[in-house]
């Protein structure tokens, strides 16, 4: 009887610790910028270019002055949804990165993994000749491939954009959407931008 009570109290203790641990975990990513609050549709309209691209390389290095670290991320463009850039590659020069034991970050600046696919929303070209990200929060949508079906899916949640099925032209979401087929996202964006 005493042993069963001890076991039960330990289970309770474990359960309490388990539940409370979620209060302390920093589960969400954290931005170190402050932005204007915009929907994905707002960002799409404001973007100078929107492309589907695959990351082929990423390199961090100090600037010439030795004061700031920049990361150079190169993409192979697979589809252009907006803009008329005929190039098949583009490179982003983004502040932050790690060199040696020094890390400089704007946390939650979108992370790009080599071979990863993304939909990029690009702003104006900066003085160094590199395109800017049109938005921190909505500037890069992650694309994953469904292992079973081979379909590409936009996994980053979106808001404020009406999503239509490309094959039926039927609206499937008018506000928040998650796990949208890439082909439907592209179709919906082109439809919204042409209106």
């Amino acid at each position, binding site marked *: 009887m005493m042993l069963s009570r001890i076991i*039960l109290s330990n289970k*309770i203790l474990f*359960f*309490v610790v388990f*539940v*409370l641990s979620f*209060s*302390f975990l*920093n589960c*969400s990513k*954290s*931005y*170190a*910028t*402050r*932005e*204007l*609050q*915009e929907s994905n549709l707002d*960002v799409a309209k*404001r973007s100078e270019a929107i492309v589907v691209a695959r990351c082929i390389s990423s390199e961090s290095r100090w*600037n*010439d*002055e030795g*004061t*700031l670290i*920049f990361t150079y991320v190169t993409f192979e463009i697979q589809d252009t949804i907006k803009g008329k850039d005929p190039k098949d590659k583009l490179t*982003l*020069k*983004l*502040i*932050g990165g*790690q060199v040696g*034991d*020094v*890390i*400089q*970050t*704007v*946390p*939650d*600046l979108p992370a790009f993994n080599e071979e990863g696919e993304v939909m990029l929303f690009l*702003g*104006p070209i*900066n*003085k*160094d000749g*590199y395109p*800017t*990200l*049109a*938005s*921190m*929060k909505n*500037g890069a949508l992650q694309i994953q491939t469904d292992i079973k079906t081979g379909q590409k899916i936009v996994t980053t949640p979106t808001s404020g954009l009406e999503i239509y099925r490309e094959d039926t032209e039927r609206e499937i979401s008018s506000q*928040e959407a998650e796990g949208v087929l890439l082909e439907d996202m592209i179709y919906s964006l082109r439809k919204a931008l042409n209106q």
Partner: protein
Amino acid sequence: MRKIKYLALFTFLVLTFPVFAFSYHILNNSTSTFSFVFLRWSSTPVNLRVDPGTLAGGGGQEIVVGACEVWNSVPNAQQLCGSLTNFSEDITVDNFQSMTSNSNGSIDVVFDETGEVVAALGLSPNSTLGVALVSRNVNNGEIRGVLIVLNGKILGNSNSDPLSTTTHEMGHSWGLAHIPIGGINNSNNVSGLEPIDTSAIPSMFPFNIPDDDEFGRTLEIDDKVGISVRYPSN
């Protein structure tokens, strides 16, 4: 059966108990999901170097002083802001990389009147209100320096307040991350649990505050607890 009922009741109470004190988020130095090395300065107060130019057409130094006063007034916390000095010349996109330093033990504040500095960092000059670049040691999370860039091109319009943004970016300088509280508020019609009043949205919310961005000038309890825990006055 009785024990199961007690356990269920206890769980219900725990899950519904207000967790404001745990809602602040702290920038962490983790390189894996299961290890956290929280970012913080090894000693305070921290000195600031400030752009002598204007911000959104007005005095920028006064805004930085105002933000410092806000963070230095947190109960039970150390004094965070130290002395303010000016750079010897106006900081622009042409000289910010040589004039500022992200690892010299200070917080450098740049007033980017044209948005070109923000763009040079790879970010949008049309939507980024401010940015804080935190440099730290990868081994222990010790903050070595911070570069804050305030975008004067859009601050002051588009319902964005320079002091609120400066207060927010300065919060990052102390190692605070963003707080999601405010994403569901009584102004944006986002579906979810009971919306928060926009006047109560914490300063570390990552976007400008609907209705009136000046609400971001004052710290809410989540902001204050985050600082008092990381930099306790005793």
